C-alpha cells in the first residue's frame, strides 16, 4: 500500500513538473475566449444553443469551463453541421446567465487533424446548403440579374466561384451600418454591410447550384470589443473551401480565424428566451498556461488524457470518477455495514443519473421499479424458467423506460427527451432480487435493502457529480493509485462494522456477564 501511495505521489509530481517544463513553440499562442450571455425566460422550456469553437488544424480548445446555473444541459456533442454545441434548457422562468471560458491554443503551423465527417455530403445536408432563407433570397430577381450579368465569363465552377467572390468583394460598395444586411437588398442597392456582403455571396453560389454556407467565428487577436465575424464556405468537390468577401480572403482563411457556428450567424441561438445579451472577450494568456500538446507527437502522449477531444473529456472524467464510487461502496459495505441489492448496482445507477438529468432519472427509476415489480408478480403465475423470465422482465423494463421518456416529454416534465440510459440489466436484476427477497424474507427486509441501495447510490451520485475532481483525475489519472491504496486499506480493515455495534449490543455491558447452565 505504501508502494501505491509513493508511486501515486511520484507520478503526480513527475507529470506536474513535466507540464511546467513544456514550452510553446515559436508562433504559438494561448488565448482565453470568454462568453458572457444573459437572457430572460418567460415560460419554461426555452432552449439555448451555445456554439463553441471548433478545432481546426491551427487551433484547439484545450480547456473549457461553462457555468450555467439552473439550466439543464444535454450532453455536448458535435451537431450535424459540425458545430460543437452546448444545448441547454430552462426549467423555470427567470433571468439566466451563462459564462463560458474557453482556452485556445493557436498555432501557426497546421498541427492537428480535427476529425470531421469525411466523404460526400448527405442529400439533406446538400439541400440545407442550397436552400433559400429570408436573408439569403436565392430566388429573388436581384440574385438572378446579378448572375445573368456575370454569366458570360466562367465555365468551370471553380472559376464561377471566384467570379462571384470578386464581385461581392470588390463590386459591392461598403455601406457601413445603414447598408442592407440581406442578400437581395445588398445586390439591389449595390451597397452591403459585412453580413449583407457574405450573404449575397452565399445566395449567388446557391443560385448557381453550388452548396454554400455561412460560418461565424472569431478572429483571435488582441482587440477590445470582440465581435463575431461571418464568412462563407463553398463546397468544392468534397471539401468546404472558405471565402471571406469582407476581408478578401479566398480559398484559405488565416490561421487565427476560428470557426464557431457553421450555417448560422449567431454564436448563441435561443428559442423561447428574450432580451438576449451576449458579449465576448479575448485575452492572451501567458505561455505555458496550459496546452500540453505543443510538442511533436510522442508515444508518451498516450499517458496524457487531456490531449483527447473535449467531447471525450466529459465521458472519460465520469469514468475516472467511477472508482471513487466503488470506494464509497466499499466503505459503506465493509465499514458501515449497509446492505444493498447487488454490489455495484448503486454506483451504476448513480452513474446513469449523472449522465441524464437526475430528476428524470429518479422518476424513471421509481416508475420502472414499480412497473417491473407489478409485472414480475403477474409473471409468477406463468411459471417461466429463470432466463426467459428475466428476459421478459428486461423487455418490460426497456419498454417502460422508452415510454416513460415519451410520456415525460409529452407533458413537458423533462427538460429534454434525451434517453435516460438507466442500466437496464441492472434494473432487471434489481426487480428480480427485490421480488424474490420480498417473497422469502419479507417486505421489511426488501425495503431495508432498497433503502440501503438508494442511500449508497445517493452518496455515489454526490461523488460522481464532482466535476472538478473528475477534471483533476483526467489530468492526473495516477491519482487513482491513492484510490487503490485506500481500497487496500478498506480491504484490510478487520474491525467492527458500524452496524455490528448495534447487532452485538447485547454482548456489551455487565448485564450479559457469565450465565452458564
Amino acid at each position, binding site marked *: 500500500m505504501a508502494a501505491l501511495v509513493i508511486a501515486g505521489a511520484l507520478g503526480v509530481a513527475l507529470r506536474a513538473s513535466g507540464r511546467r517544463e513544456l514550452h510553446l513553440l515559436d508562433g504559438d499562442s494561448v488565448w482565453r475566449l470568454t462568453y458572457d450571455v444573459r437572457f430572460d425566460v418567460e415560460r419554461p422550456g426555452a432552449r439555448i444553443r451555445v456554439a463553441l469553437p471548433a478545432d481546426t488544424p491551427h487551433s484547439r480548445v484545450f480547456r473549457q469551463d461553462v457555468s450555467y446555473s439552473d439550466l439543464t444541459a444535454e450532453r455536448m456533442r458535435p451537431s450535424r453541421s459540425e458545430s460543437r454545441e452546448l444545448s441547454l434548457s430552462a426549467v423555470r422562468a427567470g433571468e439566466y446567465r451563462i459564462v463560458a471560458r474557453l482556452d485556445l491554443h493557436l498555432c501557426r503551423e497546421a498541427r492537428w487533424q480535427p476529425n470531421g465527417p469525411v466523404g460526400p455530403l448527405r442529400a439533406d445536408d446538400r439541400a440545407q446548403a442550397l436552400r433559400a432563407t429570408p436573408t439569403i433570397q436565392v430566388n429573388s430577381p436581384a440574385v438572378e440579374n446579378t448572375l445573368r450579368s456575370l454569366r458570360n465569363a466562367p465555365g468551370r465552377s471553380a472559376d464561377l466561384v471566384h467570379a462571384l467572390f470578386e464581385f461581392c468583394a470588390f463590386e459591392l460598395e461598403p455601406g457601413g451600418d445603414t447598408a442592407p444586411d440581406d442578400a437581395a437588398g445588398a445586390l439591389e442597392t449595390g451597397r452591403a454591410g459585412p453580413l449583407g456582403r457574405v450573404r449575397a455571396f452565399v445566395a449567388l453560389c446557391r443560385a448557381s447550384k453550388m452548396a454554400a454556407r455561412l460560418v461565424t467565428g472569431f478572429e483571435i487577436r488582441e482587440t477590445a470589443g470582440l465581435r463575431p465575424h461571418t464568412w462563407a464556405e463553398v463546397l468544392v468537390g468534397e471539401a468546404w473551401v472558405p471565402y471571406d468577401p469582407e476581408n478578401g480572403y479566398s480559398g484559405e482563411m488565416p490561421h487565427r480565424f476560428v470557426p464557431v457556428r457553421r450555417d448560422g450567424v449567431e454564436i448563441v441561438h435561443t428559442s423561447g428566451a428574450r432580451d438576449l445579451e451576449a458579449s465576448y472577450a479575448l485575452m492572451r494568456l501567458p505561455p505555458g498556461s496550459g496546452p500540453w500538446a505543443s510538442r511533436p507527437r510522442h508515444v508518451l502522449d498516450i499517458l496524457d488524457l487531456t490531449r483527447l477531444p473535449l467531447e471525450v473529456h466529459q465521458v472519460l472524467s465520469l469514468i475516472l470518477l467511477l472508482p471513487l464510487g466503488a470506494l464509497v461502496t466499499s466503505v459503506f459495505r*465493509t*465499514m458501515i*455495514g449497509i446492505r444493498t441489492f447487488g454490489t455495484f448496482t448503486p454506483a451504476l445507477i448513480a452513474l446513469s443519473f449523472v449522465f441524464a438529468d437526475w430528476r428524470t432519472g429518479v422518476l424513471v427509476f421509481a416508475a420502472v421499479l414499480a412497473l417491473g415489480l407489478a409485472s414480475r408478480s403477474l409473471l409468477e403465475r406463468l*411459471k417461466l*424458467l*429463470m*432466463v426467459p423470465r428475466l428476459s421478459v422482465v428486461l423487455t418490460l423494463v426497456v419498454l417502460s423506460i422508452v415510454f416513460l421518456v415519451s410520456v415525460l416529454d409529452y407533458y413537458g416534465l423533462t427538460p429534454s427527451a434525451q434517453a435516460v440510459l438507466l442500466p437496464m440489466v441492472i434494473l432487471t436484476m434489481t426487480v428480480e432480487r427485490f421480488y*424474490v427477497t420480498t417473497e*422469502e*424474507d419479507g417486505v421489511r427486509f426488501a425495503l431495508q435493502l432498497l433503502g440501503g441501495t438508494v442511500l449508497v447510490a445517493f452518496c455515489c451520485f454526490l461523488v460522481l457529480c464532482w466535476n472538478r475532481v473528475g477534471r483533476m483525475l483526467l489530468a492526473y489519472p495516477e491519482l487513482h493509485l491513492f484510490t487503490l491504496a485506500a481500497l487496500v486499506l478498506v480491504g*484490510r*480493515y*478487520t*474491525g*467492527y*462494522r458500524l452496524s*455490528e*455495534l*448495534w*447487532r*452485538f*449490543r*447485547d*454482548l*456489551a*455491558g*455487565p*448485564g*450479559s456477564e457469565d*450465565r*452458564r*447452565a
Partner: protein
Amino acid sequence: MSPGRRWWAWPRELRRRGVLGLNGRNGEYVLPHNRRGHYPRVDDKALTKRICESKGIPVPKTYALVERYGDLARLPEMLDSQRQFVVKPARGSEGRGIVVVADHDGNTFSTAGGRTLTLADLRYHLSTVLSGLYSLGGQPDRAIVEQRIVRHPAFETVAVGGTPDIRIILYRTVPVMAMLRLPTAASRGRANLHQGAVAAGVDLRTGRTFGGVCQGRAVSEHPDTGASIDGLMVPCWDRLLAAAMDLAEAVELGYVGVDFVLDSTVGPVVLEANARPGLGIQVANRRGLVPRLEFLDRQPEAMFRGELRHELIARLAEL
C-alpha cells in the same frame, strides 16, 4: 435477565468481550484458513453428502439427484416409493428453495407447512432450482430429493413449525462454539436466525443449552410457546461432536460451521456445512469467539489430533 437495553455497543466493549465481527471473521479466519478450492465441498450439498457418506458420517438418505430438466419427466416414478421427502437445492443458502413434502398420492403433494402442491407445481419448483434461482451466485444447480428427517422428540415443546438444528463452529477441526436453533412462527419454520428463529447457546462439554437470542436480542424463552430454552439437553452430544470434527477434517476447511438435525431413530445427521458461518452464535452464547480462537492458536500443533481435541474442547468451554 434483561440488561438495561441499549442501542449500541462501543467497539472497545465488543473487543473486551472478544466479539468477532464480519470483517474480522473474513479477514482473519475465513480468508487465511479456508482454501477457495475447497469451498465446493461445503457449498454443494450433494458433494458434502458424498464426503459424509464416505467417512461414515450420518446424513439424510438421498432418494434422487435431479441434474437435468430431462429428469423432471421421470419425477412421479422417482417419488413413488417415498411418502415423505425433502426437495432442496444443492447449492442453496439460508434454507431457501427447500420444500418438505409430508404426504402425497403422486398428483397432489402436501407440504409440512400445510400447503398443497400439484405435480406441475413441484415440477416447476424443481426447474427453478435447476435454473439456479436459489443457488449462490445464480449458477445452474442440482436438486436433491432426500429423506425427510423425523423430528427427535427432545425439543417438542420449543420447536414451532419446523425442525430444530444444531450449529457447531469448528476452528482447525476443534469445535469452538455451538448453538441450538429453533424455528418460530416468525421464521416460518426455518431455523435461520436472521429470519426470526430463536437460538440458544450450547455448552460444549455437556450439550446443555443456556442463554438465547431472537431477532438479535437476548432472550431466555421461546417467543411463541413461552417455554424456557434454558437447560435443554441435546441428545447424543458426543456423537454429534465427533461427527462435526470428522467432517471438518474431511472438507479441509480451517473455519467452518456444521449444521445437524436430530433424527428420532438415527440421532444427529449432518444437514450441511458452511465456509462462512454467521456470527449470531456469539449472541446466543452471550460471549465472543475471539478468546476461543486465539486460545486454539496458542496450542501446539500436536493437540489438534484425534482424542486430544476433547481436552481442548473442555478447556475452551471454560473460556
